[in-house]
């Protein structure tokens, strides 16, 4: 049953130092050729999941397979089939871009007669030809990311794991990284699994989204379908002056309206905002509520997260901060 999926995980648990539960029973399946985003706030367990899938660390319990190979028992076979770009920089900045590719090509075991061609080809594909003989120290963040992608793609992996691939990059550099990833996927039919805490990026680029919070999967599906979990229709956010109680009271009398978040700014879902907004405003003003600002938008993954966890991504990160800090310490010390 594990054979038909590019990635399969069953009930993965990872406990650091016997106390910090980074993964708390994660089960997921990624089909071959799929572009999968794993989203969630910092500390949700995304990186731990990816490090288990890429054979760096062993799960405390549970199993996982990549292309049918078990990540612990057949780690060698998994390593031969995957490409991986970690969140932190993974190139030697005191070597040139060309040298980094060459050294990694040798470590991957690419035969001598093909090595030079592969390196040249990747430099071309990642638009790094002109910078190839400069020390990586002089590269921009976007160039370093593309160099790392070039390294990961040299062996034409069937599954590509990217941990926060565009973190810290400006919009232009982000777009360029994504155009290269999408082109590679199209050309080779590869499976791509990426972690991100940018919900908009997951929405825009992925085919299926897995949403995580505190070591568990809280939702999974196509971005459009997930957004429907919040409900069909439009979202209206109401920035209020003072207490929300009077407003919520007034809103409860408006038909065909659901409150998504009761905290200021209050978020409500309506069937059709253009038609219903006048009634909504009338009800609020009739109850003596002063509205400072109104916004109308389509539901996003952020809203899905709010609906499912009862908190915003920022709140989850702040709430999980102590837990996340403890986990980071545990990871640093090793346990």
């Amino acid at each position, binding site marked *: 049953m594990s054979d038909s999926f590019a990635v399969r995980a069953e009930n993965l648990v990872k406990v*650091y130092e016997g106390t910090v539960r980074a993964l708390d029973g994660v089960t997921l399946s990624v089909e071959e050729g799929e572009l999968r985003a794993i989203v969630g706030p910092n500390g949700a367990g995304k990186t731990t999941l990816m*490090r288990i899938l*890429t*054979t*760096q*660390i062993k799960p405390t319990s549970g199993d996982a397979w990549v292309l049918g190979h078990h990540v612990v028992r057949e780690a*060698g076979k998994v*390593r*031969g089939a*995957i490409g*991986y*770009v*970690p*969140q*932190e*920089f*993974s*190139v*030697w900045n*005191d*070597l040139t871009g060309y*040298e980094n590719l060459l*050294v*990694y090509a*040798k*470590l*991957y*075991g690419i035969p001598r007669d093909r090595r030079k061609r592969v390196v040249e080809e990747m430099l071309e594909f990642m638009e790094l030809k002109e910078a190839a003989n400069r*020390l990586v120290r002089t590269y921009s963040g976007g160039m370093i990311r593309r160099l790392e992608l070039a*390294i990961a793609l040299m062996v034409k992996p069937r599954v590509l794991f990217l941990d926060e691939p565009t973190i810290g990059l400006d919009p232009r550099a982000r777009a360029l990284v994504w155009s290269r990833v999408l082109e590679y996927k199209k050309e080779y039919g590869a499976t791509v699994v990426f972690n991100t805490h940018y919900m908009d990026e997951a929405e825009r680029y992925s085919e299926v989204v897995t949403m995580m919070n505190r070591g568990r999967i809280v939702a999974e599906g196509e971005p459009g379908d997930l957004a429907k979990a919040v409900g069909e229709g439009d979202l209206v956010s109401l920035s209020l002056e003072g207490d929300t109680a009077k407003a919520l009271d007034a809103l409860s009398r408006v038909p065909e309206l659901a409150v998504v978040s009761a905290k200021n700014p209050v978020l409500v879902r309506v069937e059709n905002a253009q038609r219903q907004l006048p009634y909504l405003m009338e009800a609020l003003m009739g109850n003596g509520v002063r509205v400072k600002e109104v916004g109308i938008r389509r539901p996003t993954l952020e809203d899905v997260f709010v609906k499912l966890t009862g908190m915003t991504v920022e709140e989850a990160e702040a709430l999980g901060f102590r837990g996340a800090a403890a986990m980071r310490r545990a*990871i*640093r*010390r*090793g*346990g």
Partner: protein
Amino acid sequence: MSLAKALTFVELELRRLRHDPTEVFTRAVQPILWIGVFGTVMARVRAIPTGSVDYLTFITPGVLMQSSSFIAMAYGIMLVWERESGILKKVLTLPLSRLTVVLGRSLAGAARALTQLFVILLVAVPLGAKLDLSPIALALAMLALLVGAAGLTALSILLATFMKTRERFMGILQAITMPLFFASNAIYPIEMMPAPLQAFSRVNPLTYVIQALRDALVYSNPVACLQSIAEIALFSLTLVALATLLLGRIVE
């Protein structure tokens, strides 16, 4: 295990050294002082019995090993740094066995340490050290240094799996390298030491590397040299094996 892949780590190190060779020269300052100042002064005092050879010649292999051992032992800092960056994570997802990684990096550390052979010969010979510079002697010295420094680099990698910050690593490094140097036959014959120290120096790997270097460069005794190298190899292989077993710790 793939030797070609392991040697790629050596190539990596040599490429880095080519871009930035400062370490070769900064590490040369201390040995120059040991040989140029300490060695020449102590040679005049004639306080240390060194048999048929003069004192300057006697300490040259010792100082060479001191300088090389510092470089090898410091190699773990690189691993601590690579752990903080994404390099180590990336390397562990490559189709390489952990043994290839440890052996490769141990040889890489040894390659860095080997640079000291040329630096110290350039200093010691003009100052009057009478060394055997025949191809066989030099080849044996290189082999002894390579095998010894690879073992010490593996020890350094082993320490890096326990010391997760650079500060802690630097601290432990200081606490280990100087005692290893002073409790060896580097600057005086071990027969001069008090008995407990003698016992320690007989299990000190530096003693054996220095003995091998002396057999090669000073006494021109290849058989004795090879014997010491075999003993050093045992130590180095043990440490490579231990570091391989514990490498997983560093990324957890």
